[in-house]
């Protein structure tokens, strides 16, 4: 209760402070440069100055916060990557050279590549198929809501759910994981799924696919509805069957949307951290870049130089996709 009250208090104080800032600064500006000055010339000049200053007054807080929390850390990460572990000595490209020959990094890169191929492909595929199928049935919207629901769960929450799915108990005790329960029911031997190298990567990826399919489905469903019904009818008359209509008529018409969905998920995948962190923490050959960065940055005393280096690499990987994505998104919203 006390926490709630203090949280509410903070929100109210914050909002009031904002209002006070915008109102007060605006008022101050008008006082310092009054439009009804002694001479008309002076008044016009004041008006011009106030006009030039006002946008910056209003944008100021936002720019400052963005700069402090986004731009500065990004730039400082780049700087840190050229320094040693406690950032006291400039070491040039040493960190990058170390990274190049580091086994952990190579494994992370390899696993990230697996993630990059598997997760966007499966999420988009499932999203597209589900979107197409649910459009045709009366309970489609219920199904869609259920499939979309994981989007509302944090990655950590999802990981905990799936930890129970993959849960393994030693010989003799009852299996509480649903996967092992099924395996046992079918007469197989229970496995410690997330410790099986290589394949455990996919068990982790399934979690992200589970989350992202809903996102892909919603966007693609909207796109599918935008397809003119007549083109599908024309194809029916032309003799195309359901599968042909889907792949030859519908998919090509929403190709741009598919690409945007794919790249958006790709960016999420490149930054994937929480799932690996919660499920395996990079053990059993499941390391990925973001978790590896966290490892170096904060574990075992912390090596800011190497951690920052990995961060820079992730950033370099994301930026081109991001630019492409934003470009195609703005192009789409401008219309064809």
């Amino acid at each position, binding site marked *: 209760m006390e926490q709630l009250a203090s949280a509410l208090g903070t929100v109210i104080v914050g909002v009031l402070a904002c209002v006070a800032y915008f109102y007060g600064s605006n008022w101050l500006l008008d006082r310092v440069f009054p439009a009804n000055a002694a001479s008309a010339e002076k008044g016009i000049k004041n008006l011009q100055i106030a006009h030039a200053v006002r946008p910056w007054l209003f944008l100021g807080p936002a720019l400052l916060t963005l700069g402090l929390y986004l731009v500065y850390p990004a730039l400082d990460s780049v700087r840190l990557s050229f320094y040693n572990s406690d950032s006291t000595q400039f070491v040039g490209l040493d960190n990058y050279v170390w990274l190049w020959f580091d086994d952990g990094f190579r494994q992370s890169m390899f696993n990230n590549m697996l993630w990059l191929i598997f997760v966007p492909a499966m999420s988009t595929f499932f999203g597209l198929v589900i979107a197409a199928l649910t459009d045709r049935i009366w309970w489609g919207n219920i199904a869609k809501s259920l499939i979309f629901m994981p989007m509302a769960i944090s990655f950590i929450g999802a990981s905990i759910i799936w930890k129970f799915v993959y849960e393994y108990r030693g010989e003799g005790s009852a299996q509480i994981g649903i996967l092992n329960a099924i395996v046992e029911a079918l007469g197989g031997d229970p496995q410690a799924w997330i410790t099986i190298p290589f394949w455990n990567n996919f068990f982790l990826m399934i979690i992200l696919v589970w989350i992202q399919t809903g996102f892909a489905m919603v966007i693609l469903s909207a796109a599918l509805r935008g397809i003119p019904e007549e*083109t599908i009818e*024309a194809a*029916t*008359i*032309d003799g*195309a069957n359901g599968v042909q209509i889907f792949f030859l*008529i519908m998919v090509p018409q929403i*190709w741009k949307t598919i690409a945007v969905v794919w790249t958006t998920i790709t960016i999420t995948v490149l930054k994937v951290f929480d799932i690996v962190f919660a499920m395996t923490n990079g053990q059993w050959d499941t390391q990925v870049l973001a978790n590896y960065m966290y490892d170096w940055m904060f574990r075992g005393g912390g090596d800011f130089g190497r951690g920052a280096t990995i961060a820079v690499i992730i950033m370099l990987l994301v930026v081109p996709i991001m630019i492409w994505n934003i470009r195609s998104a703005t192009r789409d919203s401008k219309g064809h």
Partner: protein
Amino acid sequence: MASLKLTDIEKAYGVTKVLKNINLEIEQGEFIVFVGPSGCGKSTLLRMIAGLESITGGDLQIDGQRMNEVPPSKRGIAMVFQTYALYPHMTVYDNMAFGMKIAKASKEEIHERVSKAADILQLTPFLERLPKALSGGQRQRVAIGRAIVRDPKVFLFDEPLSNLDAALRVATRIEIAQLNESMPDTTMIYVTHDQVEAMTLADRIVVLSTRGIIEQCGAPMELYENPKNVFVARFIGSPAMNVYDCKVMETGEKTRVAFEEGGHSFTVNVPSTPDQKGKPAKFGVRPEDLRLCEDGDEPLYKCEVRIVEKLGEVTLLYLEPPHEGEEALIAKIPGTHDFKRGEMVTLTADDEKRHLFNEEEISFRWIGKE
């Protein structure tokens, strides 16, 4: 190549019947136009023939074969949509070739058929373009080309001109007429709400009303000269036929009617039976059939001019209706005339051009015939 037979065709959405008792026989090579106000189900009927809508009741036969459950692609039909329905990601060539590719025709055959269709429609220079790089008229030609390539027995047009601007509409209408002439064996069914399209293109017009039934079916001039009921009479022709309540005064070989009991009466050249005497009826006359009364003419109606519209080749007069609250009577007088507002005019029309409908709005000329 194909004749069609529709027997008791019905369409219902839930309990709402949108089409009922549709009986129609279409001969091979005929150009049939379905016409009617929006919501009358004319497009639905066309889509039922195409197989895009299920048939609730009745029989659809093409060439004597029941087609109710046959998929659209197997009915030997091709359809041209109002919105063209071109595949936006395919070139003009691929749009026209799609059906044949699906049917796994040989490359040479596809090429031959597409080139021929493109040639007919003057689309050869655009074959490699995407639909978005074409004008509206060109797009509609591609849609027609796509239908030609399918070499259909029955050509279906669903308001193909409504998305074109006025000038293009006329040009494309003439192209469709020429296409029809160049394919004398192909049956064509054309849906429109534009009666000019219907009159100019059709061998036979099928008039549907919002009641979901066929009101009348016949050659354009037959519909114009001898409409079966008030609905058809007012739907065909522009401005619409003037129709006013009247009363039957005398019956016989010719019928004498009057707008008011005891008022001026005039004859209509339709026979009537004695039992109709004194009954209310509806008198109709087309604006273009009205003319100014000259010596020796039997005057039909004398009234005051309310509005004058001079269009050059004709003058439209909006006149005081026989009864208060009714629509203005319109007369279309050839040439330019200087009528004044408030001026009294006496109008008449040839005996043959006068129409009389009974209480149920059926034309006297049609009573007892079917």
